[in-house]
């Protein structure tokens, strides 16, 4: 990809900035060739990757190097786009929101600084991936479990900062962050919470500051560069039981949510409960063309045939309990009785006890895997996906209405309906997975129009998304419209005060510093 420089920066000025940064990190860690720009592009871009081009990438190895790079970025007016490991697949990968931004790749900062078995937490740098942390825990034989997202190739901190979700009792990953260290846009260094006191041993244990608490202000944020964080871990349970319920019909999701959500809110169920529709299972069984060989959406009669042929319910709830065996048994009886009010078929039960093997795909037991990405093969070719992900209250009524609304829109675009709901407490997170082939321009155009329609209609009904791709960050930000987008106005005031040159991640989540606000109209999908 040829060089695109940031606004008001000439190629010569850009080159001077890169040379200055090479003086900090070494010339090999400034990556500014056409091939480097390709590697930092959005591999799953809906449409040409050139829509979100990085100018270059710089990879510091320490907090001090991050500070020096941030100061140089101010001096040269070259904005940075920080990524932890750059594996935010489906949301933009490592690519920046604003063209020409320099990706600040923190992948080399990959030390596990603390791993505390007694208080069940770790302190890690942004380059530490889920696989790295999992293997270190295994090597030290510590009784600790992690919570992992569907694609666990990425960074522990990066996923938490992006509000990633897992399927264990620690599944709200941003809530596991406790005590953050961040480089501010002027190069200053701050520690949140008890870490504001030098060497305070409760830094990663008490989740609030003395005074305003800023930890979450650094998530989905361009207010600083997080350089380390405490992350809470789950003490390994003595036993675990998985209850698998096949739920026959689409409309059953309503009673399923009304049955499970109260048990989740009361604490009887402690994991985030994932309710995927049948297509979630089918994508692992082959390619779409093996089951439906037309470009049009799989029709309802064929869906019903496939459910029969493959002995699948429309939904599957694989619910997992954790703890001492008598407690787990007692909880299981309560859940089974509650489900039996609407479901005749009994749950399949899979027990695990300490010492039993755990297979490589047990996401609900915190095993990291990239296998869910296999779904990109469903479409074939250069398969890619995007998720439309609104949040709704965890009641059957809200969930059913949301499903009907998105299904109607998706059907009207003749696209396959592939939904899931995750009950994370008082809310349900609805992900509508949209899969496409990057080499089929018509498919991409359809998906883009569909995405816009989903955002608009869902916002009209009163709901917003929890996360989105680069190309829709502004459109989704627009939907948060209370008092003329007061929250965005507030955040932009804070942004301008902290970052007058606007050099940290301009446009992240629709927050534009005044220095680049005129670029907000660019790069929209």
């Amino acid at each position, binding site marked *: 990809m040829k060089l695109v420089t940031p606004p008001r920066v000439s190629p010569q000025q850009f080159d001077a900035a890169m040379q200055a940064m090479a003086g900090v990190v070494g010339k*090999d*860690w400034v*990556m500014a060739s056409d*091939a*480097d720009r*390709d*590697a*930092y*592009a959005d*591999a*799953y871009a809906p449409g040409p990757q050139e829509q979100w081009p990085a100018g270059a*990438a710089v*990879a510091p190895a320490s907090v001090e190097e991050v500070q020096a790079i941030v100061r140089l970025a101010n001096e040269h007016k070259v904005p940075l786009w920080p990524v932890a490991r*750059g594996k935010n*697949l489906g949301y933009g*990968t*490592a690519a920046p929101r604003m063209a020409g931004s320099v990706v600040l*790749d923190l*992948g*080399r900062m*990959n030390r596990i600084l603390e791993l505390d078995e007694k208080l069940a937490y770790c302190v890690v740098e942004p380059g530490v*991936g889920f*696989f*790295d942390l*999992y*293997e270190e825990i*295994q*090597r030290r034989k510590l009784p600790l479990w992690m919570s992992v997202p569907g694609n666990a*190739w990425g960074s522990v901190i990066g996923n938490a900062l992006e509000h990633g979700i897992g399927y264990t009792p620690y599944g709200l990953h941003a809530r596991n962050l406790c005590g953050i260290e961040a480089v501010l846009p002027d190069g200053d260094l701050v520690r949140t919470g008890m870490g504001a006191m030098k060497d305070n041993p409760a830094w990663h244990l008490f989740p609030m500051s003395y005074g305003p608490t800023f930890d979450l202000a650094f998530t989905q944020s361009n207010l600083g560069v997080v350089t380390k964080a405490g992350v809470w871990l789950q003490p390994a349970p003595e036993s675990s039981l998985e209850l698998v319920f096949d739920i026959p019909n689409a409309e059953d999701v309503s009673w399923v949510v009304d049955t499970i959500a109260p048990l989740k809110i009361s604490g009887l169920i402690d994991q985030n409960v994932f309710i995927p529709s049948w297509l979630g299972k089918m994508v*692992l*069984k*082959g390619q779409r063309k*093996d089951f439906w060989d037309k470009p049009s959406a799989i029709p309802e009669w064929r869906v019903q045939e496939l459910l029969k042929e493959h002995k699948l319910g429309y939904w599957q709830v694989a619910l997992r309990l954790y703890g001492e065996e008598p407690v787990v048994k007692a909880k299981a009886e309560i859940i089974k009785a509650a489900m039996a009010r609407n479901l005749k078929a009994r749950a399949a039960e899979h027990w695990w006890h300490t010492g039993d*093997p*755990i*297979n*490589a*795909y047990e996401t609900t037991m915190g*095993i990291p*895997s*990239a*296998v869910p*990405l*296999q779904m*990109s*093969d469903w479409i074939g*070719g*250069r*398969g890619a996906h995007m998720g439309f992900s609104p949040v709704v209250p965890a009641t059957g009524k809200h969930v059913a209405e949301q499903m009907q609304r998105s299904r109607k829109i998706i059907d009207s675009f003749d696209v396959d309906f592939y939904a899931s709901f995750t009950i994370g407490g008082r809310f349900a997170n609805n992900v509508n997975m949209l899969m496409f082939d990057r080499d089929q321009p018509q498919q991409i155009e359809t998906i883009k129009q569909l995405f816009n329609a989903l955002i608009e209609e869902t916002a009209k009904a009163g709901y917003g998304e929890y996360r989105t791709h680069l190309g829709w960050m502004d459109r989704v930000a627009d939907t948060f419209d209370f008092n003329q987008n007061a929250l965005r106005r507030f955040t932009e005031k804070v942004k301008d005060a902290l970052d007058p040159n606007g050099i940290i991640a301009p446009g992240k989540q629709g927050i534009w510093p005044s220095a680049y606000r005129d670029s907000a109209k660019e790069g929209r999908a």
Partner: protein
Amino acid sequence: MKHLSVVAAMALLAACSQQDQAPAAPAQAGKGPPPPPPYQMRPEAPTGNRLAGGDGKTLFEYHCGYCHLTGGMGTNLLTKQRMMAGETPEKGLLANRADLTADYVKQVVRMGKNAMPPQTRVDLTDAELDAVAIYLGRAK
């Protein structure tokens, strides 16, 4: 064979690659696919200067092992692909391939292929990629 499910293929592959463990019970007709494989640990992170490269096998297992060891996403997709090309399931593991050239390995790593995104020079430095390409590139 063509419609052998990925799950079955990867479990079969897992059974093939666990010779040092207790033999898995053979899958019986009508009982569904054998269980998924256990998690395969990667080697510890190589120490030293990443710009100087290192041992190709270790670097491959550490940096590519997320997807290309037993049970990984890349292995699963390649197992299906190789079996459809009439080869045995263990050819789904890149380490078992004899038909890859070093240049091809470098190209796929940097450019990506199908479901695989391109890898940056932070993911794998040029010197590390050279070592991995020599390790995997057994075809001339």
